[in-house]
Each structure stands twice: as C-alpha cells, then as structure tokens.
C-alpha cells in the first residue's frame, strides 16, 4: 500500500498533485491525500499503516512549505515510529533549475534520519509551474520522462538516486522572457500595468 501526500498549500490543483497523479499510474494499491483538505488524523493513521510514503511539496522560500513542515513536526514531536517504511520525495520549484530544491531535500533527509524512515530517493523538479501543467507538455518531455523513471522505481520498491530536472530546452534568458511575459499578462487580467506590479 502506497500513501501519496500532496503538501501543497494551493487552493486549486497544484503542481505537486499533478506529479503525484502522474506517479500513481504506476502503482496498484495507493491513496492520495491533500494535506490541506483531508482530515489530518486520517493522514497520520494511513502513514502509520503503510509501507511506502511518497511526499510531494513545493519549494517556498528555499525550503519545504509551512504546511509540509506541520506534518514533519507532528510526526517528530509525537514520536511516531516510521521505521521499516520507505520515503520517496518530489519537490518542485518555480525557478528553472531543479538544484534549487537541494537544501529542502537535505532538510527532509535530516527529518528522515530523526524519525527512522528509510529515505529511498527523490525527484527535484525545476520550472514546476511549467512541468506541472499539461498545456506545456510540448516542452516538458525530458522532465516527464524522468518522472516516469521515478514512478517505475517506486513501483519496484527500489532505491533511486536523486533525480534533478531543469528546463534545459529554454535558456535562462528565454525562460525569464517567457515567465516575465506571463506575469505581465496575469497583471493585465487584474487591470494592472507592468508599472503597477512594480509599485514600491
């Protein structure tokens, strides 16, 4: 039995959830929980009764988002024993390069050591807002293929080296242009000009 936990705080479908849905295609017996909406006690019960946990969350301020921290703290503070269980991790960030997620992953590894769970591998996704959306699938195949590989690893219960994805198809400059154009467009929807967005 696999427990897949979406730690994202977003009030609509998050990228973390998209990645978990994708991974779930490889698994037979699984439950996906949204940390924000599902009953916290149910999630804890399921964690206690499973062999494998897949935890997905976004990078917020260079570290795990606060909702995910709540789960980590609860498990540690209540001495919940996670020995004999495996942990796989999916972290996604807004920047183009997946390496920005490494510190967050190290924080998770520290936690894993403290709660005795077996850390079994991760995928660190760069450009999460693009890779996590079907509409951009024409430029995300490299990252998605790595996600597939990660999914197969979980299915086989194998340990997996940490996988890092970067939006290589776009250079830094083009990625900035792409993202900046999209921010201006979002501002316009709210009747705000570029100058308004830059207010001091």
């Amino acid at each position: 039995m696999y427990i897949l936990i979406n730690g994202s705080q977003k009030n609509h479908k998050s990228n973390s959830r998209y990645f978990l849905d994708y991974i779930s295609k490889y698994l037979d017996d699984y439950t996906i929980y949204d940390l924000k909406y599902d009953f916290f006690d149910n999630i804890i019960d399921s964690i206690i009764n499973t062999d494998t946990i897949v935890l997905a969350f976004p990078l917020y301020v260079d570290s795990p988002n606060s909702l995910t921290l709540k789960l980590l703290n609860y498990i540690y503070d209540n001495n919940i024993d996670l020995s004999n269980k495996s942990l796989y991790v999916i972290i996604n960030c807004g920047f183009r390069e997946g390496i920005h997620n490494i510190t967050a992953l190290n924080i998770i590894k520290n936690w894993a050591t403290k709660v005795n769970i077996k850390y079994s591998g991760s995928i660190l996704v760069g450009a999460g807002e693009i890779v996590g959306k079907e509409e951009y699938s024409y430029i995300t195949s490299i990252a998605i293929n790595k996600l597939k590989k990660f999914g197969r690893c979980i299915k086989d219960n194998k340990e997996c080296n940490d996988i890092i994805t970067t939006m290589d198809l776009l250079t830094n400059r083009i990625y900035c242009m792409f993202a900046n154009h999209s921010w201006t467009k979002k501002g316009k929807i709210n009747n705000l000009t570029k100058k308004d967005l830059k207010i001091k």
Partner: protein
Amino acid sequence: MKTIIHDLEHLDKELFNISDNDVIINANGCSNSCIGCFSCWIKHPKVCIYKDEYSNITDSLKNSDELIIISKNRFGCYSESVKRVLERCIGYVLPYFTIRDKHIHHASRYDKKINLITYFYGDITNQDLECLDSLVKANSINLNASSYEVKILEGKVINNVYTD
C-alpha cells in the same frame, strides 16, 4: 530601523539590541498560511490577500536596514510559524525574473539592500547547521540582501556560525 520576525515566548530586546522604532513581528500569532495565489504580486502588489497584522510586512522591510529572524531549528529549517510569516513576505521582491551571477532570481522591488541576520535555537546537529547555512544563504541571494549571518542561540549566549 530593523524588522524582527521571531517565534520566542519572550523576546529579550537587550540581547538583540532592539530599539523602540524597530518593528517586531511575533510569528506565533500567524495562523493564516500563504495559499500560493500570487495576489501579492499580480492583484494587490506587496499586500497579502489575508487581512491581518501580517498582510503588509513588505512595507516594514522596505524601511528597514536589517531583517532579523529568530527561530527554533526544525531539522535545519525555520519553525513552522516563522516559515508561515516568511511565505507571506514574497511581495518584497518582484514577480519578474532577472539573471544575477548566471542564475535566475526575482528582481528586487526596492533599490535598498537589507542585511539578513538569523538566530536559531533548540537542538542543532551538524547536518542541521549545514542546512541552515545553505538555507539562509539562498534566502539572502533571493532577497538580494547585502549580507547574511547565521548565529546560534544557547540561552543568552550567541555564537556566530556563518557570515558572508
């Protein structure tokens, strides 16, 4: 002027050299979490969608020379409450990306650069310390801070660990 974000039950103003015109933000009262809506970038720039005492920290940061963060160490990260406050401060930078030192970062909203000084307390392992250093360093780069410091607090004793 300084902005101090902390999760202590009692803040010793003398120990941290805090004066009357500094802004003190007690993170323990912050119950609203960022919902990733980006309103503070694209709807009401700088201002968080939640209307509470944490909705406009950007303005106090704008007027500060120093941001002081005092937090319990949690596995090499900030405490949940401090983290909740920090997540509601992203309006301090612009949504727009820029390239600094060959890497993508958010462009600064303000010309003035802030010093980032952090204090951590509680049990801290060597692995935690390594994470805290890389975390605060990354924060300082993303905030475009002029410098950062990581200090460890043991009772009233402050030990400098990392400075850049």
